């Protein structure tokens, strides 16, 4: 039974690594708008988000009972399958981070789990209907709901303060918007810590139960809660600067009132959806809210090419993580050597992605430079562009809003200098 405890240890560590990637992947959700509008300094913002994530991890005692919420039949799920699923989710999270694309960490986890479970037990272990209701439909609904709400809210707030022209008054309202943004961003961070750290605790607990260390139905031990909270907070503090840049600057140019409207919309949608029983992805709600806020301001621009790339990534999340998960499960099925190979591949793959990211580092110093080379990832970008459908509507919307007749200048347009603010 020696190798089972070793396997268990590997799964626990991998789950914590996933938690960590989840943290830095999702920092953008809470803090991108706050950072890009200058409400908080980048380092301050991620520190605040990290602390709130940590607090969130301890707030709720209700740990996720299932990893996938019924998508995958989790009875008799073997520990290797969980490991394979985590490998798929982590690699997809890292790849989308390298590309600076916000995508849902939960969907990556679902995808990995689906792939691994299918490889392990066949298609019958998947509940197809639940995939539609829990993944596909929310993926369409979340940005719509959050986007419409943010757009109307942006219109309203601009309308109310359109008569404010006195410089002192403007300064005073700016301070107000800043405070409002910080408050709603804090709420998003707290909700994220509660939801997503619980998810990792659920995974670890499930793995412990499956291997017989814990009795079924028992609560996670303290060390699980602490380590999951710390992992997600560390990830958040490290900051997924690439994704923050896409969300805060790449999709649209946000003014403080827009940032406030977007963040409030995102916080409301996340809380309303999880409370009313139709869970929507945090990432997708936030991205939608940012785009809605971009549309709500007169003269606001949404860069549809960046948005399209993001949508493509959302669409690919489930199948891509699924394929990696399935491949990983294929290997782990072969026995201890397969698990070793998978672990080596995971470490190697993560290291390669990290190396690739060093070629064009994005950190707190240049997170707000929209002018800088935004999509520097050479080969990967090309690959991604090949997947991406031709940007049909892009030139039109760009023309309309920038008034510069850039004849379809760059389909990869984030590199384009920002339009006048």
């Amino acid at each position: 039974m020696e190798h089972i405890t070793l396997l268990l240890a590997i799964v626990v560590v991998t789950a914590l690594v996933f938690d960590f990637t989840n943290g830095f992947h999702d920092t953008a959700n809470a803090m991108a708008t706050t950072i890009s509008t200058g409400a908080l300094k980048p380092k301050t913002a991620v520190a605040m988000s990290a602390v709130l994530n940590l607090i969130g991890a301890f707030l709720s005692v209700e740990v996720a009972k299932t990893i996938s919420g019924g998508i995958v039949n989790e009875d008799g799920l073997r520990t290797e399958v969980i490991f394979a699923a985590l490998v798929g989710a982590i690699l997809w999270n890292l790849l989308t981070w390298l590309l600076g694309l916000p995508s849902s960490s939960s969907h990556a986890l679902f995808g990995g789990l689906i792939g691994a479970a299918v490889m392990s037990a066949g298609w019958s272990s998947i509940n197809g209907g639940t995939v539609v209701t829990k993944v596909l439909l929310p993926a369409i609904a979340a940005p719509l709901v959050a986007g419409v709400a943010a757009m109307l809210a942006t219109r309203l707030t601009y309308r109310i303060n359109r008569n404010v022209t006195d410089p002192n008054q403007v300064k005073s309202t700016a301070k107000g918007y800043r405070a409002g943004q910080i408050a709603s961003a804090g709420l998003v961070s707290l909700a994220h810590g509660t939801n997503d750290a619980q998810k990792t605790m659920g995974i670890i607990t499930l793995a412990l139960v499956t291997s017989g260390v814990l009795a079924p139905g028992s609560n996670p031990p303290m060390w699980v809660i602490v380590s999951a909270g710390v992992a997600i907070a560390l990830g958040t503090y490290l900051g997924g600067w690439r994704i923050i840049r896409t969300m805060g600057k790449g999709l649209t140019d946000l003014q403080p009132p827009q940032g406030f409207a977007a963040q409030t919309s995102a916080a409301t949608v996340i809380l309303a959806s999880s409370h009313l029983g139709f869970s929507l992805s945090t990432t997708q709600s936030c991205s939608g809210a940012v785009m809605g806020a971009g549309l709500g301001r007169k003269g606001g621009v949404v860069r549809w090419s960046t948005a399209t790339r993001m949508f493509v990534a959302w669409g690919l999340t489930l199948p891509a993580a699924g394929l990696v998960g399935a491949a990983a499960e294929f290997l782990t099925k072969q026995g201890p050597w397969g698990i070793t190979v998978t672990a080596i591949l995971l470490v190697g793959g993560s290291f390669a992605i990290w190396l690739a990211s060093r070629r064009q580092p994005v950190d707190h110093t240049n997170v707000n430079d929209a002018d800088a080379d935004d999509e520097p990832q050479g080969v990967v970008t090309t690959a991604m562009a090949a997947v991406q459908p031709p940007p049909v509507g892009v030139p039109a919307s760009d023309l309309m809003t920038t008034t510069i007749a850039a004849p379809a200048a760059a389909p990869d347009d984030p590199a384009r200098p920002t339009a006048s603010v």
Partner: protein
Amino acid sequence: MKIDWAALASVFGVSLVVTVALVGLFTLGIVALSKLSATSGGAAGGGSAVLARTSAYACFAACTAAVAYGIYLIVA
């Protein structure tokens, strides 16, 4: 496969109303408060200054209550 359209619709409705109401209230609050610091005749007399301050605080109180309810939802 059963799609819970009612839940989806209520998420949509609630999010829309709450977001717009909160942003509207908060904006009213900060605009009212900003009148106090206007350089030229923004708040004319003492009476309107008090009114502005009171209404601003009322707006902020409502927003704070909403945030508190949000935290309650997270914890519960």
